[in-house]
């Protein structure tokens, strides 16, 4: 099989590695216009902050690719001819394929604000963005970040590391209003405060103002405020990169349309990761998933189909993680902003504001646990996943909470306090803490 993969992000590379494992004789080529080698997109911020160098965020060493017979091409795929089964590259090369995987990822969504073309206005998605940010933030004093999501807080942290003053504009009433409950968002707000970042909630960008040289000099907000700044980060989301798909017969909507096996409307052409849009997403699932983890899982799933075992994508019990300045966040299962009807929610917060835990569970008998939010606490993925998929009663989960504790040794254990508060709030489910994590594991 000649497998051609467009994109060397986590999806394309995971698919390539899985195919290599399943089909040792396959010819695998990966094309990327962004970088010669796969790198961890989620680690871009650490390069800017000087924690690591660019070569340190590559998950695999140079020898890895030739030793696993993975051919890497650094060029733009400019057109796709599904009839001739061939992709044309920017360097004129024509690549024939037996099977094609489109893993083209995303592009920053820079919706039509006046002034978005000014120098010093950009999103953060890939290496070219990082290089521009490096240039345009050098020696500046003030920056504005637009967007109260994960990239928004990352940009704020990056700029803060260089001593640049930051104001963040957030459309919602609290941080990450579409995902985090208000209580958790308040802890993130405390992180902003501790690091001297100004956040304007319920405020959007109205206009970006430039100077005579075509550089940004201020933004105007929907609240009518004008904020002087020399750089603007637009962190209002990403949208599937359809540039190559749109040169072909492959059907697209917002993303490249795929069935549950990640197959497009054209035989032997597949799409996975950020760029794929499910025609029929599962109940309660979104059609386009733009996370590192979902990209990896889609890449693994599509590899099985590519190797002749048609396999439906099931993302399983939801999980995600992030870090807001010094506050770590992990989530498992379903934890919506407001508890769904028929769901109860228990929230515990340490007085210091650096640790919190939310537990959601069914109100109906059985009281199965449905989701966890952990802030400043590390929870065992495998344990939480088991609890949720086995519909474990909340009382049992609370009683054995220590089994999910993944904090380092000697860290203060909060289980006793959590259980006490839980029993106060839900006396009908009162639990007795059974197991504590000890020195002996």
């Amino acid at each position: 099989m000649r497998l051609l993969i467009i994109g060397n992000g986590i999806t394309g590379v995971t698919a390539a590695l899985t195919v290599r494992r399943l089909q040792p004789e396959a010819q695998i080529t990966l094309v990327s216009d962004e970088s010669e080698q796969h790198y961890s997109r989620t680690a871009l911020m650490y390069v800017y902050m000087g924690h690591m160098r660019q070569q340190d965020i590559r998950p695999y060493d140079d020898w890895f690719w030739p030793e696993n017979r993975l051919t890497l091409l650094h060029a733009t795929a400019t057109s796709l001819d599904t009839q001739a089964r061939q992709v044309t590259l920017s360097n004129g090369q024509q690549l024939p394929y037996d099977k094609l995987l489109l893993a083209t990822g995303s592009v920053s969504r820079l919706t039509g604000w006046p002034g978005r073309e000014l120098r010093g206005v950009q999103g953060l998605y890939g290496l070219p963005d990082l290089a521009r940010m490096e240039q345009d933030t050098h020696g500046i004093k003030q920056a504005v970040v637009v967007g109260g999501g994960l990239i928004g807080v990352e940009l704020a942290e990056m700029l803060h590391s260089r001593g640049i003053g930051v104001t963040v504009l957030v459309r919602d009433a609290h941080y990450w209003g579409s995902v985090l409950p208000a209580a958790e968002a308040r802890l993130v707000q405390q992180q902003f405060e501790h690091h001297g970042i100004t956040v304007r909630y319920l405020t959007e960008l109205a206009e970006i103002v430039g100077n005579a040289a075509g550089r940004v000099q201020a933004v105007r907000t929907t609240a009518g405020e004008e904020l002087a700044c020399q750089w603007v980060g637009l962190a209002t989301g990403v949208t599937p990169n359809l540039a190559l798909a749109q040169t072909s017969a492959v059907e697209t909507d917002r993303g490249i349309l795929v069935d549950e096996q990640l197959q497009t409307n054209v035989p032997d052409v597949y799409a996975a990761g950020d760029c794929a849009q499910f025609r029929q997403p599962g109940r309660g699932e979104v059609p386009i998933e733009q996370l590192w983890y979902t990209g990896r899982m889609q890449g693994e799933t599509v590899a099985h189909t590519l190797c002749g075992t048609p396999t439906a994508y099931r993302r399983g019990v939801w999980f995600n993680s992030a870090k807001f300045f010094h506050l770590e966040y992990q989530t498992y299962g379903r934890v919506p902003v407001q508890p769904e009807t028929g769901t109860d929610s228990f929230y515990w917060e340490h007085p210091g504001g650096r640790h919190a835990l939310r537990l959601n569970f069914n109100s109906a008998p059985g009281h199965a646990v449905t989701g966890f939010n952990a802030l400043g606490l590390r929870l065992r993925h495998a344990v939480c996943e088991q609890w949720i998929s086995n519909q474990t009663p909340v009382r049992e989960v609370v009683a054995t909470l220590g089994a999910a504790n993944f904090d380092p040794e000697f860290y203060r254990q909060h289980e006793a306090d959590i259980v006490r508060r839980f029993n106060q709030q839900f006396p009908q489910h009162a639990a007795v803490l059974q197991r504590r994590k000890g020195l002996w594991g």
Partner: protein
Amino acid sequence: MSSSPAAPSLALAQPPLNDISLGEKAALTGIGLGFLALLAAAADADAWRARLSLYVALALISGGTLGWSWLKYGRKPAGLQHDNLWLRSSTSRGAVAWITAVVLTGFYVLLYWYSSPDDKGHFGLLNGLVHTLDPFSQLLRRRAADQWFLYGTFYTLAILLMGGRALWKYRHSRYQLIRTGSVMFFQLGFAFVLPGLLLFFQQPEFYFTYFWPLKYDYLLPGTVDYLVKDGQALGVFMVFWGAVMAFLATPVLTYFFGKRWYCSWVCGCGGLAETAGDPYRQLSDKSRAAWRWEVRIIYPVLALIIIVTAAMWLNQVLHGAVLGAAADGLYRFYGFFVGAVFSGVVGVGFYPLMGSRVWCRFGCPMAAYLGLLQKHFSRFRITTNGGQCISCGNCSNVCEMGIDVKQYAQRGEPIVRASCVGCGMCSTACPRGVLNLENGPREGRYAASTLIHADSLRILS
């Protein structure tokens, strides 16, 4: 095979950093002046003036280091503080790092080969400095200072001062606080004060925290004879202690806790690496080639010291009948190349260029011994948390032993490596809560998470 890049070069220009506050600059200047005062102390022929220079130097260096640490870390919210690590000349093999390396290496060369006392008790180029410590040495050990007392004092001071820095820097992690406290305690108590007090009471100088094969002398016939004859009951206990620690306590403790119980909690070499060497931990080479060199060098060193020990005892028993002078030659060879050049000059002198654990990783026979136990006979492992790894590389970056931790984490596999000293920094640096040091049961120690592979039932229905 890569074609020529289609996009323009993305190489990031490194801007000059401007993140050092005035206060920090003042503190750093104080440290610099302190080192100048140290030079003055070394050069001054007048004993009183030299001593005064030394006190001024120590005050400036101590105050400067602790003050700088507080200004740099103490004023910011507690949490991982690695900003600009690779952008600074001192911590990214820049000019400052090279100068530091040359100065450190030079000091070790002076110490090992140009400071032995001559017939008149003159300690070569370090003579001035050695004598400034005479009053302190009299107080602690009831005898005049020598070059090794000077070295021990500086070494302990480095661990205490840079330990103070580490306590500020990692104050958000109780594991790091307790572990740093432990290396400071063992260095000060067991590797400095106690050996001094033993001398004070006319007993043999003995370090209860160093064992064969790192402190190979302790189980060689010469030292054993001396301890038993000179130290009487206490000397017999010292020999017993050394043997029990090397052959009984080491396997047992390593079985329960991994090699970390020694390498990053007790050992003085480890103590210096974890404190003074902390700014350089990211410089260790993570490549596969480096790992191969590590295996090629460290196990032969262990084999060599076993051979040296066996040869010396054979000589002792047979009164030199079979090996004769060859055993002594082997012993001197080991002492020069491994004991002095490798562990001292390269081990510490190259901190700013090759990271803080060059000796521990490539040369230490104790680490090799502990590593074999840890790999094959221990409950210790670093667990990875399901599918949460994002391959960011922070764990590999901070690994002073050059383990490419993310290779395991991104596969969901536990890390069971002979070289891991259990400093816990990978877990501290992980932004997603993926890594944890655990002493679990030995069953399933290598089992990978099922949450990361497509083979798992979770993804494939």
